[in-house]
């Protein structure tokens, strides 16, 4: 061996001489770029599969959340659309923020005289609830409080009762329907809002 490491030793030249045959393979840049593109494609595919997987989990959960309240005891719940409360031949169409709560633990806690077969309830996403009860006829106008205000709901005469008449209700309506009285009480709704809602939705 002729390499001598003295003070004048040029390590760089010696290394270049020794490593003369050590060169990268042809097309190295191309293979690096290809590898990079492949990695990007894999990352995109991974992201897409995560989105698909999340959608796969999220859609059934969303469906369960929106449609899970079901249609119990003849009170129609219309999936993600408006909720329909039905009692006898009366249907009250509620905005989509309401969910029918019949048959679930989240029943409406309003103290209107009721029998389970003749009551339908719905809860609102804002925390309020609404109860519709069918009672024997001839109660109003004699049984409504003096402070009740007579209003017209569609073709029916009705009396608007303020907060405090029924336990837990912020407003209520006693509707004089043929052969029965329809009581609609709500919590979390002002009297004016209840009249507006029932006038628009009762059929």
């Amino acid at each position, binding site marked *: 061996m002729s390499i001598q490491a003295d003070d004048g030793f040029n*390590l760089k030249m010696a290394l270049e001489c020794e490593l003369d045959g050590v060169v990268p393979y042809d097309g*190295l840049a191309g293979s690096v770029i290809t590898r990079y593109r492949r990695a990007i494609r894999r990352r995109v595919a991974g992201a897409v599969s995560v989105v698909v997987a999340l959608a796969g989990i999220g859609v059934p959960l969303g469906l369960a959340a929106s449609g899970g309240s079901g249609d119990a005891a003849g009170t129609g719940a219309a999936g993600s659309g408006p909720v329909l409360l039905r009692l006898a031949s009366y249907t009250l169409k509620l905005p989509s923020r309401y969910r029918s709560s019949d048959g679930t633990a989240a029943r409406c806690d309003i103290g209107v005289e009721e029998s389970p077969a003749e009551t339908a309830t719905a809860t609102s996403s804002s925390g309020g609830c609404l109860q519709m009860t069918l009672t024997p006829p001839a109660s109003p106008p004699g049984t409504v409080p003096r402070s009740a205000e007579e209003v017209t709901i569609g073709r029916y005469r009705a009396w608007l009762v303020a907060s405090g008449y029924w336990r837990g209700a912020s407003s209520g309506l006693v509707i004089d329907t043929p052969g029965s009285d329809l009581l609609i009480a709500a919590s979390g709704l002002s009297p004016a809002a209840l009249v507006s809602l029932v006038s628009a939705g009762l059929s």
Partner: protein
Amino acid sequence: MSRAAEREAAFTRFVETASTSLLRAALVLLDTREEAEDALQLTLLRTFRRWERAKEAPEAYSRAVLVNICRERWRHRARHPEVTGALGDVGALAGVASFAEAVDRRHVLVRALRKLPAVQREVLACRYLLDATVSETAAALGIAEGTVKSAASRGLEQLRLLLSAEEKKVSRVHPG
């Protein structure tokens, strides 16, 4: 030419000019040609991935990346020492090992460099294979310039001793 095509063209030019010295430095810093080529490709991949940042000074960027990759390999090797084969495999492996050793024996300087402490090896590789200045070497290795100078000096001294010992060994085997 699109922006992506320009980027690839600039990167290709950089690879053509810098990859040989990077490979040689990797060969000094790591143990085998395969490891060195793998480290080189990873270095270039990481450089290309960050080309927008690296393009101002791709040599400096790739130098630092290569050093980091080699350090990662050393740390990995320290944590996962190679498992030696069973006794029955020794005969078969011995032939391969001796062949590899025979090929490697040509690289006297490289083998001597590999015997140096890590910092000295890194400094000498940066200074003499990657043509980095003292300050560039300090930046790539994350050490002070004074440390670079002292490590270079001690590394050269150590190399000198190792090569002298190697020469004496060869003289004994092949006298005259």
